[in-house]
Protein backbone atom coordinates (compact mmCIF):
# COMPACT_ATOMS: atom_id res chain seq x y z
CA UNK A 1 0.00 0.00 0.00
CA UNK A 2 2.71 2.43 1.03
CA UNK A 3 4.90 1.46 -1.91
CA UNK A 4 2.05 2.11 -4.38
CA UNK A 5 1.57 5.58 -2.89
CA UNK A 6 5.27 6.35 -3.39
CA UNK A 7 5.09 5.20 -7.03
CA UNK A 8 2.01 7.36 -7.61
CA UNK A 9 3.60 10.41 -6.01
CA UNK A 10 6.79 9.93 -8.01
CA UNK A 11 4.81 9.65 -11.24
CA UNK A 12 2.87 12.86 -10.52
CA UNK A 13 6.10 14.64 -9.61
CA UNK A 14 7.69 13.52 -12.87
CA UNK A 15 4.66 14.74 -14.86
CA UNK A 16 4.83 18.04 -13.00
CA UNK A 17 8.53 18.52 -13.75
CA UNK A 18 8.08 17.64 -17.44
CA UNK A 19 5.11 20.03 -17.74
CA UNK A 20 7.04 22.90 -16.17
CA UNK A 21 10.05 22.19 -18.39
CA UNK A 22 7.88 22.07 -21.54
CA UNK A 23 6.09 25.30 -20.64
CA UNK A 24 9.41 27.00 -19.96
CA UNK A 25 10.82 25.99 -23.36
CA UNK A 26 7.63 26.94 -25.21
CA UNK A 27 7.29 30.32 -23.54
CA UNK A 28 10.95 31.32 -23.91
CA UNK A 29 11.85 30.82 -27.59
CA UNK A 30 13.76 34.12 -27.66
CA UNK A 31 16.46 32.79 -25.34
CA UNK A 32 17.20 29.89 -27.62
CA UNK A 33 17.38 31.91 -30.83
CA UNK A 34 19.53 34.76 -29.63
CA UNK A 35 22.77 32.94 -30.27
CA UNK A 36 22.12 32.07 -33.91
CA UNK A 37 19.97 34.92 -35.20
CA UNK A 38 20.53 37.15 -38.21
CA UNK A 39 22.72 39.48 -36.16
CA UNK A 40 25.67 37.17 -36.75
CA UNK A 41 26.01 38.15 -40.43
CA UNK A 42 28.62 40.89 -40.80
CA UNK A 43 31.32 41.98 -38.41
CA UNK A 44 34.78 43.54 -38.23
CA UNK A 45 36.77 43.58 -41.48
CA UNK A 46 39.41 45.68 -43.17
CA UNK A 47 39.92 45.48 -46.97
CA UNK A 48 41.47 47.64 -49.70
CA UNK A 49 39.06 48.99 -52.28
CA UNK A 50 39.82 49.33 -55.99
CA UNK A 51 41.27 52.81 -55.43
CA UNK A 52 43.63 51.58 -52.73
CA UNK A 53 41.56 53.14 -49.92
CA UNK A 54 40.98 51.04 -46.80
CA UNK A 55 37.35 50.13 -46.14
CA UNK A 56 36.34 48.75 -42.74
CA UNK A 57 33.05 47.83 -41.11
CA UNK A 58 33.53 50.93 -38.91
CA UNK A 59 34.14 53.28 -41.84
CA UNK A 60 30.83 52.10 -43.36
CA UNK A 61 28.85 52.83 -40.17
CA UNK A 62 26.14 55.45 -40.61
CA UNK A 63 25.12 54.49 -44.13
CA UNK A 64 23.44 51.34 -45.42
CA UNK A 65 25.34 49.41 -48.07
CA UNK A 66 25.21 46.24 -50.18
CA UNK A 67 27.85 43.56 -50.55
CA UNK A 68 28.39 40.85 -53.18
CA UNK A 69 30.94 38.04 -53.54
CA UNK A 70 31.99 37.49 -57.16
CA UNK A 71 34.84 37.47 -59.67
CA UNK A 72 35.44 38.92 -63.13
CA UNK A 73 36.00 35.52 -64.81
CA UNK A 74 32.30 34.86 -64.21
CA UNK A 75 30.27 34.62 -67.42
CA UNK A 76 26.76 34.97 -66.14
CA UNK A 77 25.74 35.48 -62.51
CA UNK A 78 28.15 38.32 -61.66
CA UNK A 79 27.50 40.59 -64.66
CA UNK A 80 23.77 39.87 -64.43
CA UNK A 81 23.66 40.72 -60.70
CA UNK A 82 25.67 43.92 -61.20
CA UNK A 83 23.45 44.98 -64.10
CA UNK A 84 20.33 44.28 -62.05
CA UNK A 85 21.46 46.28 -59.03
CA UNK A 86 22.52 49.14 -61.31
CA UNK A 87 19.01 49.18 -62.79
CA UNK A 88 17.46 48.88 -59.32
CA UNK A 89 19.50 51.80 -57.93
CA UNK A 90 18.56 53.93 -60.92
CA UNK A 91 14.89 53.02 -60.42
CA UNK A 92 15.04 53.97 -56.71
CA UNK A 93 16.45 57.33 -57.82
CA UNK A 94 17.77 60.14 -55.66
CA UNK A 95 17.51 58.25 -52.35
CA UNK A 96 20.18 55.85 -53.63
CA UNK A 97 22.59 58.42 -54.99
CA UNK A 98 25.18 57.88 -52.23
CA UNK A 99 24.48 54.16 -51.79
CA UNK A 100 27.46 51.83 -52.25
CA UNK A 101 27.59 48.25 -53.50
CA UNK A 102 30.81 46.46 -52.53
CA UNK A 103 31.99 43.73 -54.92
CA UNK A 104 34.32 41.45 -52.93
CA UNK A 105 36.38 39.36 -55.32
CA UNK A 106 36.67 35.67 -54.43
CA UNK A 107 39.48 35.43 -57.00
CA UNK A 108 42.12 37.93 -55.81
CA UNK A 109 44.80 35.97 -57.71
CA UNK A 110 43.39 37.21 -61.03
CA UNK A 111 41.27 40.21 -60.00
CA UNK A 112 43.68 43.08 -59.46
CA UNK A 113 42.48 46.43 -58.14
CA UNK A 114 42.88 47.96 -61.63
CA UNK A 115 40.86 45.19 -63.28
CA UNK A 116 38.13 45.36 -60.65
CA UNK A 117 37.90 49.13 -61.03
CA UNK A 118 37.44 48.83 -64.80
CA UNK A 119 34.92 46.01 -64.37
CA UNK A 120 32.70 47.58 -61.70
CA UNK A 121 32.98 51.02 -63.30
CA UNK A 122 31.51 49.69 -66.53
CA UNK A 123 28.26 49.11 -64.58
CA UNK A 124 27.96 51.99 -62.14
CA UNK A 125 30.34 54.24 -60.20
CA UNK A 126 28.47 53.28 -56.99
CA UNK A 127 29.82 49.72 -57.30
CA UNK A 128 33.20 49.50 -55.57
CA UNK A 129 35.57 46.55 -55.81
CA UNK A 130 37.11 45.17 -52.60
CA UNK A 131 40.26 43.09 -52.99
CA UNK A 132 41.38 40.78 -50.15
CA UNK A 133 45.17 40.84 -50.06
CA UNK A 134 45.46 37.16 -49.21
CA UNK A 135 43.52 33.98 -48.54
CA UNK A 136 43.15 34.85 -44.84
CA UNK A 137 41.42 38.16 -45.55
CA UNK A 138 39.08 36.49 -48.03
CA UNK A 139 38.31 33.59 -45.67
CA UNK A 140 37.54 36.03 -42.85
CA UNK A 141 35.18 38.05 -45.04
CA UNK A 142 33.37 34.92 -46.27
CA UNK A 143 33.05 33.63 -42.69
CA UNK A 144 31.58 36.93 -41.47
CA UNK A 145 28.97 36.92 -44.24
CA UNK A 146 28.49 33.14 -44.22
CA UNK A 147 29.40 33.13 -47.90
CA UNK A 148 30.77 30.14 -49.74
CA UNK A 149 33.55 30.21 -52.32
CA UNK A 150 35.45 27.29 -53.79
CA UNK A 151 38.06 26.93 -56.50
CA UNK A 152 37.07 24.37 -59.16
CA UNK A 153 39.47 23.04 -61.82
CA UNK A 154 38.53 23.28 -65.51
CA UNK A 155 40.46 21.90 -68.53
CA UNK A 156 42.21 25.23 -69.11
CA UNK A 157 42.48 26.58 -65.55
CA UNK A 158 39.90 27.11 -62.85
CA UNK A 159 36.61 28.76 -62.04
CA UNK A 160 34.98 29.70 -58.74
CA UNK A 161 31.80 28.50 -57.07
CA UNK A 162 30.39 31.30 -54.93
CA UNK A 163 27.38 32.60 -53.02
CA UNK A 164 25.46 34.74 -55.48
CA UNK A 165 23.09 36.72 -53.22
CA UNK A 166 23.55 40.44 -52.65
CA UNK A 167 23.70 41.19 -48.90
CA UNK A 168 21.95 44.32 -47.64
CA UNK A 169 23.41 45.87 -44.48
CA UNK A 170 21.81 48.73 -42.53
CA UNK A 171 23.46 51.90 -41.22
CA UNK A 172 24.40 50.13 -37.97
CA UNK A 173 26.18 47.36 -39.87
CA UNK A 174 23.37 44.92 -39.10
CA UNK A 175 22.18 42.40 -41.69
CA UNK A 176 18.96 43.64 -43.32
CA UNK A 177 18.26 41.00 -45.99
CA UNK A 178 19.34 39.84 -49.43
CA UNK A 179 18.60 40.65 -53.06
CA UNK A 180 18.24 37.75 -55.45
CA UNK A 181 18.14 37.49 -59.25
CA UNK A 182 15.07 35.26 -58.93
CA UNK A 183 13.11 38.15 -57.40
CA UNK A 184 11.28 40.66 -59.58
CA UNK A 185 12.78 44.15 -59.95
CA UNK A 186 9.76 45.45 -57.99
CA UNK A 187 10.53 43.23 -54.99
CA UNK A 188 14.24 44.11 -55.02
CA UNK A 189 13.55 47.84 -55.33
CA UNK A 190 11.01 47.73 -52.48
CA UNK A 191 13.67 46.16 -50.24
CA UNK A 192 16.21 48.80 -51.24
CA UNK A 193 13.71 51.57 -50.48
CA UNK A 194 12.93 50.12 -47.05
CA UNK A 195 16.64 49.84 -46.29
CA UNK A 196 17.26 53.44 -47.37
CA UNK A 197 14.33 54.74 -45.33
CA UNK A 198 15.46 52.97 -42.18
CA UNK A 199 17.32 55.17 -39.72
Amino acid sequence: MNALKIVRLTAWAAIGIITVALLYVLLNPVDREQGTGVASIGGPFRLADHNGQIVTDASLRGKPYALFFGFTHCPDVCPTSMLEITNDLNAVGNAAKDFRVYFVTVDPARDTTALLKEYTGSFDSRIIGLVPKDEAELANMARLYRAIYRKVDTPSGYTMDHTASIYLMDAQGQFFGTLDSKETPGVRQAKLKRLLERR
Partner: protein
Amino acid sequence: MSRLLAHLRSFALSLAILPLVFAASPLSAHDYKLGDLKIDHPWSRATPGGARVAGGFMKITNNGRESDRLIGGTLVTAGIVEIHEMAMEGNVMKMRALAQGLEIKPGQTVELRPGGLHVMFLDLQSPLKEGERVKGTLVFQRAGTIEVEFKIEARGASGGHDHGHNHSGGHKP
Protein backbone atom coordinates in the same frame (compact mmCIF):
# COMPACT_ATOMS: atom_id res chain seq x y z
CA MET B 1 26.91 33.05 -132.33
CA SER B 2 29.03 31.02 -129.97
CA ARG B 3 29.54 34.17 -127.86
CA LEU B 4 25.80 34.57 -127.47
CA LEU B 5 25.56 30.95 -126.41
CA ALA B 6 28.28 31.45 -123.80
CA HIS B 7 26.38 34.46 -122.45
CA LEU B 8 23.18 32.46 -122.26
CA ARG B 9 24.95 29.62 -120.47
CA SER B 10 26.54 31.82 -117.83
CA PHE B 11 23.19 33.64 -117.35
CA ALA B 12 21.44 30.30 -116.81
CA LEU B 13 24.17 29.25 -114.39
CA SER B 14 23.78 32.50 -112.43
CA LEU B 15 20.04 31.91 -112.17
CA ALA B 16 20.69 28.40 -110.90
CA ILE B 17 23.19 29.58 -108.28
CA LEU B 18 21.06 32.50 -107.06
CA PRO B 19 18.76 30.51 -104.72
CA LEU B 20 21.80 28.77 -103.21
CA VAL B 21 23.38 32.13 -102.40
CA PHE B 22 20.22 33.35 -100.69
CA ALA B 23 19.64 30.08 -98.88
CA ALA B 24 23.14 30.17 -97.41
CA SER B 25 22.67 33.71 -96.15
CA PRO B 26 22.02 33.81 -92.39
CA LEU B 27 20.40 37.25 -92.65
CA SER B 28 16.75 36.27 -92.52
CA ALA B 29 16.97 33.31 -90.14
CA HIS B 30 19.99 33.06 -87.92
CA ASP B 31 20.25 29.31 -88.00
CA TYR B 32 22.58 26.72 -89.44
CA LYS B 33 22.42 23.14 -90.62
CA LEU B 34 25.15 20.56 -90.36
CA GLY B 35 24.19 17.03 -91.35
CA ASP B 36 21.23 16.12 -89.15
CA LEU B 37 21.88 18.98 -86.73
CA LYS B 38 20.14 22.32 -86.72
CA ILE B 39 21.80 25.12 -84.76
CA ASP B 40 19.47 27.99 -84.02
CA HIS B 41 20.66 31.49 -83.22
CA PRO B 42 24.12 31.32 -81.66
CA TRP B 43 24.45 34.41 -79.48
CA SER B 44 26.40 35.95 -76.64
CA ARG B 45 26.24 39.05 -74.49
CA ALA B 46 28.21 42.27 -74.47
CA THR B 47 30.99 41.95 -71.89
CA PRO B 48 31.64 44.32 -68.97
CA GLY B 49 34.89 46.32 -68.98
CA GLY B 50 37.91 44.17 -68.25
CA ALA B 51 36.01 40.88 -68.52
CA ARG B 52 37.92 38.10 -70.25
CA VAL B 53 35.09 35.56 -70.39
CA ALA B 54 31.60 35.25 -71.85
CA GLY B 55 28.96 32.58 -72.37
CA GLY B 56 27.76 31.48 -75.80
CA PHE B 57 24.17 30.30 -76.21
CA MET B 58 22.04 28.60 -78.90
CA LYS B 59 19.52 25.85 -79.54
CA ILE B 60 20.71 22.60 -81.09
CA THR B 61 18.27 20.08 -82.58
CA ASN B 62 19.28 16.59 -83.65
CA ASN B 63 16.99 15.42 -86.46
CA GLY B 64 19.05 12.29 -87.09
CA ARG B 65 18.90 8.75 -85.78
CA GLU B 66 22.22 8.80 -83.98
CA SER B 67 23.31 10.69 -80.92
CA ASP B 68 25.89 13.43 -81.35
CA ARG B 69 27.98 15.52 -79.00
CA LEU B 70 29.05 19.16 -78.99
CA ILE B 71 32.69 18.74 -77.99
CA GLY B 72 34.24 22.14 -78.66
CA GLY B 73 34.48 25.20 -80.81
CA THR B 74 36.29 28.43 -81.45
CA LEU B 75 35.62 32.16 -81.40
CA VAL B 76 37.97 34.43 -83.32
CA THR B 77 38.43 36.68 -80.28
CA ALA B 78 38.70 33.92 -77.64
CA GLY B 79 41.85 32.00 -76.76
CA ILE B 80 40.00 28.97 -75.40
CA VAL B 81 36.49 27.59 -75.74
CA GLU B 82 35.00 24.99 -73.38
CA ILE B 83 31.56 23.47 -72.81
CA HIS B 84 30.25 24.34 -69.33
CA GLU B 85 27.20 23.80 -67.21
CA MET B 86 26.14 26.24 -64.52
CA ALA B 87 23.61 25.58 -61.77
CA MET B 88 22.38 27.33 -58.67
CA GLU B 89 22.50 25.20 -55.55
CA GLY B 90 20.52 27.23 -53.05
CA ASN B 91 22.12 30.64 -53.41
CA VAL B 92 25.50 29.26 -54.48
CA MET B 93 26.52 29.42 -58.14
CA LYS B 94 28.34 26.30 -59.31
CA MET B 95 30.01 25.85 -62.67
CA ARG B 96 31.48 22.71 -64.19
CA ALA B 97 33.26 21.90 -67.43
CA LEU B 98 31.61 19.03 -69.32
CA ALA B 99 34.60 16.80 -70.02
CA GLN B 100 32.64 14.52 -72.37
CA GLY B 101 30.96 17.41 -74.17
CA LEU B 102 27.23 17.91 -74.47
CA GLU B 103 25.12 15.06 -75.83
CA ILE B 104 22.24 15.78 -78.19
CA LYS B 105 20.14 12.63 -78.53
CA PRO B 106 18.13 11.78 -81.66
CA GLY B 107 15.02 13.92 -81.83
CA GLN B 108 16.19 16.08 -78.96
CA THR B 109 16.54 19.87 -78.80
CA VAL B 110 19.06 21.13 -76.27
CA GLU B 111 19.03 24.79 -75.34
CA LEU B 112 22.18 26.51 -74.14
CA ARG B 113 21.00 29.57 -72.22
CA PRO B 114 21.95 31.94 -69.38
CA GLY B 115 21.80 30.20 -66.02
CA GLY B 116 22.52 26.76 -67.49
CA LEU B 117 24.47 25.13 -70.31
CA HIS B 118 26.81 27.38 -72.25
CA VAL B 119 29.82 27.48 -74.50
CA MET B 120 32.44 29.20 -72.36
CA PHE B 121 34.63 31.74 -74.13
CA LEU B 122 37.89 32.24 -72.22
CA ASP B 123 40.86 34.54 -72.73
CA LEU B 124 38.87 37.08 -74.74
CA GLN B 125 41.29 39.31 -76.63
CA SER B 126 38.73 42.08 -77.10
CA PRO B 127 35.37 42.95 -75.55
CA LEU B 128 32.18 41.66 -77.15
CA LYS B 129 30.04 44.62 -78.21
CA GLU B 130 26.30 44.70 -78.65
CA GLY B 131 25.19 44.49 -82.28
CA GLU B 132 28.35 42.78 -83.52
CA ARG B 133 28.51 39.35 -85.11
CA VAL B 134 31.60 37.40 -84.18
CA LYS B 135 32.76 34.44 -86.22
CA GLY B 136 33.48 31.10 -84.67
CA THR B 137 33.03 27.38 -85.10
CA LEU B 138 31.21 24.57 -83.33
CA VAL B 139 32.70 21.08 -83.29
CA PHE B 140 30.51 17.97 -83.06
CA GLN B 141 31.77 14.45 -82.54
CA ARG B 142 29.85 12.94 -85.49
CA ALA B 143 28.70 15.84 -87.65
CA GLY B 144 32.07 17.59 -87.62
CA THR B 145 32.77 21.32 -87.67
CA ILE B 146 30.57 24.19 -88.75
CA GLU B 147 31.32 27.89 -89.09
CA VAL B 148 28.80 30.10 -87.31
CA GLU B 149 28.40 33.72 -86.31
CA PHE B 150 27.60 34.61 -82.71
CA LYS B 151 25.27 37.58 -82.52
CA ILE B 152 26.24 39.84 -79.61
CA GLU B 153 23.24 41.07 -77.67
CA ALA B 154 22.82 43.48 -74.75
CA ARG B 155 24.46 42.77 -71.38
CA GLY B 156 21.25 41.75 -69.69
CA ALA B 157 19.77 39.83 -72.63
CA SER B 158 18.14 36.62 -71.54
CA GLY B 159 17.27 34.68 -74.63
CA GLY B 160 17.38 36.72 -77.81
CA HIS B 161 13.76 35.90 -78.48
CA ASP B 162 12.71 39.40 -79.42
CA HIS B 163 15.18 40.09 -82.17
CA GLY B 164 13.10 38.99 -85.09
CA HIS B 165 14.90 35.79 -85.95
CA ASN B 166 13.04 32.77 -87.17
CA HIS B 167 11.85 30.33 -84.51
CA SER B 168 9.69 28.06 -86.56
CA GLY B 169 12.66 26.60 -88.37
CA GLY B 170 10.60 26.76 -91.55
CA HIS B 171 13.22 28.77 -93.40
CA LYS B 172 16.12 26.38 -93.60
CA PRO B 173 19.38 27.34 -95.17
